[in-house]
């Protein structure tokens, strides 16, 4: 579905991604873990075309997308939930979702599903999204990615700063997205969340993927976790 081979990204004078090899398999949730500054967010932004890869290949559904404009990459079927959520605060919840439903009017069934997952969005449907709480904004950001069927959803730290009850909502949302057939690539610092959602895992270190494998194996190997995630794991367990 998605494959990065030897992807390099420079941001100004900094060489952030230094040959990333990564795969997100169809219908599975791949967790991208790593210490702060390992290059996780840059990897997602490179996939979305928000940073141009300076070398290497980014292939999606058999097509090279490295270097394409962000809008074209999105049109190829990739949804993006950024770390800062980026909800449009001047627009109502409804308008945010109408904009995300690019191919036409919002599908009623899909909307009911979103309301079932995130009832607050129905409550605040006509309210400016700037009035939502942090957790509700995260719900909206996820709903925006899920309001139309997408082939791949890439998500950057969806549980960051959320209350525990809200984290359960987020986990359930991605579980249901996966059941609906979506492929998900997710950066997550909350290892409990990563463990309960992930099928596959890739761990980044210093701009490269240092480990790839099944989440079950990784979760069982504490020595490997400690070596690759170190303190960042301890602080989130």
């Amino acid at each position, binding site marked *: 579905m998605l494959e990065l081979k030897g992807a390099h990204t420079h941001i100004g004078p900094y060489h952030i991604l230094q040959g990333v090899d990564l795969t997100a398999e169809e219908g599975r949730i791949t967790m991208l873990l790593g210490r702060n500054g390992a290059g996780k967010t840059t990897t997602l932004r490179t996939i979305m075309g928000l940073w141009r890869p300076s070398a290497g290949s980014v292939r999606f559904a058999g097509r090279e997308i490295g270097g394409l404009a*962000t*809008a074209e990459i*999105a049109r190829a079927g990739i949804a*993006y939930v950024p770390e800062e959520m980026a909800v449009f605060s*001047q627009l109502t919840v409804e308008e945010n979702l109408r*904009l995300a439903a690019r191919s036409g009017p919002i599908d009623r069934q899909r909307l009911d599903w979103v309301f079932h997952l995130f009832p607050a969005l129905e409550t605040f449907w006509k309210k400016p999204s700037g009035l939502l709480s942090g957790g509700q904004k995260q719900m909206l950001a996820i709903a925006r990615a899920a309001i139309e069927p997408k082939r791949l959803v890439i998500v950057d730290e969806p549980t960051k700063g959320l209350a525990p009850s809200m984290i359960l909502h987020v986990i359930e949302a991605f579980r249901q997205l996966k059941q609906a057939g979506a492929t998900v690539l997710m950066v997550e610092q909350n290892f409990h969340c990563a463990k309960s959602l992930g099928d596959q895992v890739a761990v980044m270190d210093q701009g490269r993927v240092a480990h790839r494998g099944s989440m079950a194996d990784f979760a069982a190997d504490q020595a490997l976790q400690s070596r690759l995630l170190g303190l960042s794991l301890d602080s989130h367990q």
Partner: protein
Amino acid sequence: MRKTYAILPALMLLALPLVGNPASWATLTVAGLAMGMMTFIMASGLTLIFGLMGVLTFAHGAFVTFGAFVAASLLTPDLAMLPLALLAAMAAAAVLGALFERVIVKPVYGQHTKQILITMGAMVVAEQLIIVVWGADQRMVELPPLLKGSFLVGDATFERFRLLVVAIGLALYAALHLALNRTRLGLLVRAGVEHPEMVEALGYRIKLVFIAIFALGSALAALGGGLWALYRGQLTASLGAERMIDIFIVVIVGGLGSLGGCFIAALLAALLFNYTSYFAPSLASLSEVILLIVVLLWRPRGLMG
């Protein structure tokens, strides 16, 4: 927000006993509304460009002048030519505006000091180019005969052209308001101002939206310029530069980027000028500055900023 709109009828009603004569009041009010509408049309483009794209363009006045010259060049005594001339001016300004955005503004997005310098330079160059094409002399602009003159309602006198301008301004405000709030393009524009990257990540080409806004802003400036030249009956290459002070005041008083604020501020400034001209002529030229000071002391971000 609705309370802010109430300032306008409040000012009009307050002016009635001060002016005294209802017929004079009605004439002054319609004249003020017409002037205000023309300023609104010219300023609406600037407030859209600044509010939506964060670009402070001093070259906006060049599009006002350009539109006025194009419209004036095409006008004939035939009334049917008036809308055609104004539409042609808007279309030409829209094309130039899009080019201006790509060539002059694009390299300085997010750099306000450079924007001010480069657009001021562009304004000077544009004014000289206009002189090269149309000459430096003052040019007379004739209204089509059917729009000349006025009619009486009771003792109040209403000029035909001013009423037409009020109607155009109202229609334009309604259209822009609807477009921004009820269409997908409007949603895109409002969303794109806040998170352009996210709009791209939803699959929209935000750059095209920004070019369209610049083109629209330039077209509105041209329409305002054409109407202003017809209203004044004459035109020089400095028309746009002269109007820029009023335009900036209106944009600031209204609240940077607020279309509704720009609308209220333009009408407020023009009505205040007209009423002050009637009962305290020596203060008329200061009325806009006083309005600016009072509003900024009351609401530092403008009426609807």
